[in-house]
């Protein structure tokens, strides 16, 4: 044990180390990852809610009898949801490309790709908005409808959150230029993007296919 006020004698010089690092070396990347743990837990709980209501309701999905025309088979329509899924999966192409371009500090590519992902993002929010019509139920018709709306709504919330993040990055990029810190930001936003797509790949069959199988 050294005396309390003794001067240090040897130095570990870190001045040569870089000021920013990508991926698991960066605190920001970790912060984002833990946030996604939280949100994954949230969807896990939501799936449990959905399954509970699905088990409670017989027949499932419940026939829609309170409005005209009466619907005995009230499974959700698939056309628009499938279009949404395809657009979401296609958005991975500019998404991954953007991620790679940011790592290469390819300013031109980043600027173009960020604008493209922004368009995808807006399209996805619009498609999701109309997707609610495919459900044939309003949120307050029954517990199954409540759970489905909530699941779609929560995922839509993330699409909007990502849109907001992309707007911030795009405005900064065009106004103030592309710097090292924002290269990191773009790669971290990409992780969020991948997670949103991955989450939907899990949720899509639950929302749209499970009612058809039962």
């Amino acid at each position: 044990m050294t005396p309390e006020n003794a001067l240090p004698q040897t130095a570990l010089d870190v001045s040569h180390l870089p000021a920013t690092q990508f991926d698991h070396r960066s605190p920001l990347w970790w912060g984002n990852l833990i946030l996604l743990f939280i949100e994954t837990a949230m969807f896990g709980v939501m799936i449990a809610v959905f399954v509970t209501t699905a088990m409670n309701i017989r027949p499932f999905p419940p026939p829609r009898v309170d409005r005209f025309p009466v619907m005995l088979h009230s499974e959700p329509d698939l056309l628009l949801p499938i279009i949404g899924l395809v657009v979401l999966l296609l958005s991975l192409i500019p998404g991954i490309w953007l991620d790679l371009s940011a790592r290469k500090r390819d300013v031109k590519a980043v600027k173009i790709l960020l604008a493209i992902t922004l368009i995808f993002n807006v399209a996805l929010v619009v498609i999701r908005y109309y997707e609610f019509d495919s459900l044939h139920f309003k949120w307050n018709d029954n517990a199954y409808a409540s759970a489905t709306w909530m699941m779609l709504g929560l995922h839509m919330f993330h699409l909007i959150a990502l849109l907001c993040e992309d707007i911030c990055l795009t405005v900064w990029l065009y106004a103030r230029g592309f710097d090292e810190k924002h290269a990191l930001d773009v790669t971290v936003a990409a992780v969020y993007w991948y997670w949103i797509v991955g989450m939907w790949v899990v949720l899509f069959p639950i929302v749209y296919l499970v009612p058809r199988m039962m």
Partner: protein
Amino acid sequence: MPEEEIDKKQSADLSEETLEIERLELEETWAAPRGFYGWLTDVDHKSVGLRTIFTAFVFFGLAGLLALAMRLQLSRPENDVLGPDLYNQFFTTHGSAMMFLFAVPVMEGMGIYLVPLMVGTRNMAFPRMNLYGYYVYLIGGVLLFTALLLNIGPDAGWFSYVPLSGPEFSPGKRVDLWSQMVSLTEIAALVGAVNIIVTVMKQRAPGMSLNRIPLFVWAELVTAFMIVFAMPAVMLGSTLLSMDRLTDVSTHFFNVAEGGDPILWQHLFWFFGHPEVYIIFVPATGFVSQIITTFSRRKTFGYVALVLTMIATGFIGFGVWVHHMFTTPLPQLGQSIFTAASMLIVIPNGVQIFCWLATLWLGRLNIKTPLLFVFGFFAIFVMGGLTGVMLASVPLDLQLHDTYFVVAHFHHVLIGGAVFPLIGAIYYWFPKFTGRMMSETLGKVNFVLLFVGFFLVFFPMHFLGIDGMPRRVYTYVAEAGWGELNLLATVGAFTMGLGVLVFIWNAIDSLISGEKAARNPWGGDTLEWLADSPPRPYNFQNIPVVQGRHAVWERTADAPVVTGLHTKIREMLCTTVHAASPEHRYSIVGPSIMPLLLALVTGASFIGFAFSPWSIPLGMAASFAVLFGWFWSNSEEHRPPHTPEEDNPIYEEGDLE
């Protein structure tokens, strides 16, 4: 400031003059902003941590006063101090405040203060988020007590079971405000957890590999991970409940008539609620480990075992929630599994207790107030643990469910397992927080009053429960024969109240005229004792290099220190996750009003949701506006003149790497 000035880094020259110049630069760079406005924007983890701890103790005091009122009401049969409605509001607010506004925040507050110091860094990874978390928590807490003052305090119990808390049986806004309070405080808990995890993962001093992390930091890390996976369940649950209740929304998640399920609420609540107990208890085991090591004056016995038991508790803690629901129709296999899991958790806890006993047994004891509270912890917590094993058995639980036996059990676990170590921890770290020692004499009086008071209140409750006294009744008839034991409990409650007063008096008096504390008054082994008491805003002038598990005890005379960090910007060191070898420099942003603004928007939109669903889109739009400002100011602070250009180069087209 001119650019050549910010380019200056700490030099490897460790002469007295250089160190003095660098010290002055650090003082200026990390200085807390001045004035009331400055105080609102201060992102120093020590300031945020102390505010959280102080606020949590204020809520502890208020919830304690509610408990005293309830004890007065129950002191004799058919008493009329509190009417049934007020009594319902009091016990609900007492439980909700103790769990959501005191226990979890105070444990996180201790982590926010201590973790960066113990791992040897200058601040948390995301200092502005940290401040945001505090404000959201404060708004949630003020909401609960304001509601109580306006006679719209929640009255459906701290776990708000549906259908009682549903729109049919709890009209009005009482439960809505409760569920918004839950959402707000859980946001705060989650923000704190993310911050603690990243700080521990990335910012440990060089040399503090995973197997050298102090036990309290391990405890905070495990707790933070538990928060990450437990809190979403209750946040979602309380959101679903308020959507069911809100007239314009009226979803049916818990409405049986439309395929909803009241038992679903119990699952959602207890999937959070039981891990919550460990979220409160695990940090307390961290206090116990640190205090026992310091006051035994020897290395902790079974460090690896203690770490593994904390992690095991974290995992098993998620597999026991259904034991709160043994009186609901469960499949028999389910009952058996959850009984087994609930008994299983005794094993890691037992291992911990024996490791601590071994450390004490092999050490040279220095019996001071913090250690006394740890002894109190042993006595009370072990009893609470044993009644827990009893309640894990379904047949017994069916008899004792919702009786005072359960009240006795969880107060033993929570007060014994968390409050006693916490108060010990305040005595232990008070010199670090304030630079002054707390009085030992008053500390002993404080301990005796709390310890004796505790047993007077809660021990008799076991018998009351076995005699059949149910929880949550505002009174009882004389013929029941519960009068004497209830009177005894009331006497004990006021003894405890006196103990808390002595504690408050000791804290205030010591703050004003306590003996000045040295850097390491107790001879502790962790890095916070290398910092000044109270620490400078930058914590350490040079980040220390860690040479062993007990960083201060194993520090050699020629121990190296980190140099080469900027002294004119807020820069810290990031190290690798496993070995903690230096990886990159990491600059953080300074004070800002944005956290407060965002917290106000969050608070307004959540509270608004008790009245109208439109508060959510409006709140999202307003949040986006604030977040844009937050993002922009952060981004500007990473540009010259705040940050040297070479640390954040701007790329042009054609600059391909």
